């Protein structure tokens, strides 16, 4: 089926896709998506979706296996119509299990040295509480990285997502100094992991990676298009990461779904370094009513990961 799709002319495929997106609104659960093919590496959810193959046949596919062909570079500039994405991270639940990091790296075919999602051990001041702080890209509404790019390789879409087009990027790294959150990573060489991905490049997948260019967390628009939440959100065993839509006023971590505005209001959600004026699309819920001691985050860490936190004020004092 994949081959059949690839043989299709680009234009007709794009129209095909568009129709599919309109019919299925991209995320409709249960039925409606037309062009789809199956991702053998994904896990089944048990929920069946009716899809139309390129031969015109209707078949049932498990929703977990559903996958769309990657959108073209041109298409990736537009954004998914009528959406505005948002992420909420509940710091009270994070225990540095690092499943988000691993799933993200696997999904984006990244080497160990490139992390789109980083987990920090933060402590705002000496007497305040330390906490684990997962940090994706904040997809700012006033993104300095986008302003400073000399070639338009990084851009803000109508759905709020900030993406990078690696085939346009010249690798000047100005965006990396522009981002105050150290979000962006650079491909210092050609990593073997890049070759694992055999599909054509799309900014929506941020894969395959390209030597000498910048990349970062992309909010997984390729997954959003098939009604899934990003790798990090679905991989987190604690359900720390919620993903959703501001206009729909809904966020979900896959098991629990909340009204976004109410959640932020009730739990005093905030954005990191609000004073910088970058207007992030990622909100944090303060680390209150903890489910875990901070020390639990050191539990099963690989030595080189544990080593990372050795210079934090908390580690120096408590020697976990």
């Amino acid at each position, binding site marked *: 089926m994949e081959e059949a799709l690839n043989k299709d002319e680009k234009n007709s495929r794009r129209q095909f896709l568009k129709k599919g997106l309109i019919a299925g609104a991209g995320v409709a659960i249960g039925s409606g998506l037309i062009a789809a093919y199956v991702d053998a590496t994904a896990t089944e959810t048990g929920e069946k979706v009716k899809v139309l193959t390129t031969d015109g046949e209707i078949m049932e596919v498990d929703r977990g296996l559903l996958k769309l062909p990657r959108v073209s570079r041109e298409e990736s500039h537009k954004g998914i119509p009528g959406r505005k994405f948002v992420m909420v991270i509940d710091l009270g639940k994070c225990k540095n299990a690092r499943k988000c990091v691993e799933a993200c790296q696997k999904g984006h075919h990244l080497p160990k040295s490139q992390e789109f999602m980083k987990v920090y051990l933060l402590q705002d001041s000496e007497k305040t509480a330390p906490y684990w702080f997962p940090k994706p890209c904040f997809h700012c509404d006033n993104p*300095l990285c986008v302003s*400073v790019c000399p*070639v338009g390789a990084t851009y803000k879409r109508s759905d709020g997502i900030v993406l990078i087009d690696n085939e346009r990027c010249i*690798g*000047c790294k100005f965006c990396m100094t522009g981002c*105050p959150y150290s979000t962006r990573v650079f491909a210092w060489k050609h990593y073997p992991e890049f070759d694992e991905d055999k599909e054509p490049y799309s900014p929506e997948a941020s894969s395959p990676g390209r030597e000498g*260019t910048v990349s970062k967390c992309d909010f997984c628009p390729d997954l959003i298009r098939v009604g899934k939440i990003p790798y990090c959100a679905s991989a987190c065993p604690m359900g720390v990461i919620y993903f959703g839509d501001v206009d729909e006023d809904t966020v979900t971590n896959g098991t629990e779904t909340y009204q976004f505005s109410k959640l932020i209001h009730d739990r005093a959600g905030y954005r990191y370094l609000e004073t910088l004026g970058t207007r992030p699309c990622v909100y944090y819920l303060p680390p209150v009513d903890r489910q875990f001691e901070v020390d639990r985050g050191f539990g099963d860490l690989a030595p080189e990961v544990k080593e990372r936190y050795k210079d934090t004020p908390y580690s120096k004092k408590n020697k976990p």
Partner: protein
Amino acid sequence: MELQPKNPLRDFAPQLERTSFQGYAWIVFLLAVIGLGVYAFLQQVIKGHEVTGMRDNVVWGVYIVNFIFFMGVSYAGALISGTLHLFKTAWRKPIIRMAEFITIIALLIGPCFILLCIGRLDQLHYLVLFGRIQSPITWDVIAISTDIFGCFIFLYLSLLRDLATLRDDELLRLPNWRKKLYKTLALGYTGTPEQQQRLNRATDIMAAMVISIAIIVYSVLAWIFSVTLQPGWHSTIFGPYFVIAAVYSGSAVLIICMWVFRKVYHLEDYITKKHFVAVGVIMLVLAAAFFGYFTFSDYLTKWYGSEKNDELLIQLLFKEFYWPFIISNYIGVLLPLLVVGIAKFRTITNITLTSVVVVIALWLNRYIIVVPTLESPYLPIQDSRPEWLNYSATWVEWSLTAAGVAIFCLLFTLASKFITIVPVTGLQKEEKKEDILV
């Protein structure tokens, strides 16, 4: 061309006509250093930027430092020669060409260093194809290319009289192709009153243009840093700060060049202590302005208010970057003040040695602007890999830095073989006139 009792060209002819054994050895040495740089560059292209010390936190290292440094040096000619020209300063003649050569040569080398930082040189043309005017890098591309163009015209205009002199001089023993080249380049200039008037007007206009373009270029360069939100960079003072720093380093490089060419080409009759003191005083004023005023007010406000990230940065500067900080911001300022400021110390050797220290201090000054800021981002760096934690340049970066300096020296040497390093037309030996400064 009226012949003076002794044509000064006779004093300068040997440097054009012959190259000594030491001269050739020097050129071979420079080529070897450049060769090492080429090898390092190939390594970087083949193995990727991993061969440098740069990583995700410190994404700009020694390359950018060199870029700022060379651009700053280029400012010497623009400001010093431009200003001295406009004010018709009498003593400028013997050193003005060196200043112009410094400008154009440094201006050609500087941008090469930013290219070394670019991850995908194969896509460099996208800067033109898809250039976004909102990006300070685009401002930089426009400003630097305008500057190179303007400085070339300014240099060429100032060479014209000498090109005509070299064309007309019968006694010069030079191969025919060079004679022909001088003839072509002299554009039929014979020194008629009308030509003189036009040339003077054009030079005046270009001098003013070159000064203003150079101010813009260096401000734009500063804005690349200060438009970001990084602590230590996000500062309104950066534009003028960089401009002053540039002239400061430029004046020091000019003094070193004066010393070298005075020795090598025996120009003691033309370049005298007066010139060293005069440029030294320019350097002194800039030292006071640059350090006493800009650097001090920048760090004072950061330290006094002690915003969290500014405080972390200053702690870093006084711990891990202690010596670079002391050399650039203390020794780099006090030395010129003492040596040039106190008449007793004001000798040619002392002024030159001070200039060497100033050049080093200014390079370090750029280093501690670029690197510590990138090592202290808003979110603390939490990493176990040492090269991700702290930046230290690798042999590739040092080799290319050395190659940059070698190209500077080589182009300067070749330029001085092509045309006299001092403008000879209408030049007179320095008279023993007493100057208040000397």
